């Protein structure tokens, strides 16, 4: 990893954590907990996920001494959470109940003719940026609704990837899914969001 400002920041933070500085923990909690929760949510419901992440933080207090910086602090924390979640939930292991054999969402797949061309092409109108789209609060709500309708495991994998761990190899490693499954999961979720945004722009409704 080339020395970046983020990297230096992290090294500083690690040193302070290793020195047992409470303020450093407060900082780390706020920086890393959302991602840790996303990992735990892959395995379990919201309140158990909070318990698991809490246990992990207390374990970190004694384990941080052995942190050697081979992975980033974030990845190290994510792995601790994944292990903890797998251990405590072995009995009730969730399954990702999505059909990964198809690369396209059925609703999107049905918009092509049999020769592979569009029969219902996408709207041309979207010239708005994501930012200006989100200024419409109703769209944000709609996005929430659609995200919450995704299967839990699929959603947390998506969140983990999009918001916290941009490296798919790490995400696969942490969640124990294959690269191709993760890929299809991401693609399908994105297609769903595409369909949702298009519908929203056409009708003004979620």
């Amino acid at each position, binding site marked *: 990893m080339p020395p970046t400002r983020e990297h230096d920041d992290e090294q500083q933070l690690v040193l302070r954590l290793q020195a047992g500085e409470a303020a450093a923990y407060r900082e780390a*909690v706020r920086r890393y907990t959302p991602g840790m*929760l996303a990992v735990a949510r892959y395995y379990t419901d919201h309140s158990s996920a909070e318990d698991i992440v809490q246990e992990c*933080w207390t374990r970190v*207090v004694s384990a941080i001494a052995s942190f050697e910086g081979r992975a980033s602090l974030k990845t190290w924390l994510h792995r601790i959470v994944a292990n903890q979640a797998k251990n405590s939930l072995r009995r009730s292991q969730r399954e990702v109940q999505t059909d990964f054999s198809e690369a396209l969402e059925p609703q999107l797949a049905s918009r092509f003719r049999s020769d592979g061309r569009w029969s219902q092409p996408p709207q041309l109108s979207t010239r708005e940026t994501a930012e200006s789209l989100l200024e419409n609060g109703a769209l944000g709500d709609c*996005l929430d609704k659609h995200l919450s309708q995704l299967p839990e495991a699929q959603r947390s994998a998506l969140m983990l990837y999009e*918001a916290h761990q941009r490296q798919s190899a790490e995400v696969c490693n942490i969640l124990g899914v294959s690269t191709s499954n993760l890929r299809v999961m991401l693609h399908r979720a994105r297609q769903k969001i595409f369909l949702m945004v298009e519908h929203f722009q056409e009708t003004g409704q979620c």
Partner: protein
Amino acid sequence: MLMCRDLAVIASDYIEGDLPLTQRLSVRTHLMMCRHCRSFVANLRNSIELMKGHSDQRLDDRYARRLDEEIERALASQSKDGSGPDQG
């Protein structure tokens, strides 16, 4: 030849720059000729951005404070054991 449907399948990889060169070139060629797929890719790119911006959930304040307290307790018991770092 790459059809619109094929392009939709790999569009997500194309946007992330994850396609091998030959596939990338055939996507580009197709996009030059097909306005429907151009708007599909543009709109899909937008959807991805939307999700990135959206998914950064904020941490519940009460929960964060609960974590602070647990950690402080753990830090205190560690330094009492003498196993922890020297707090000076």
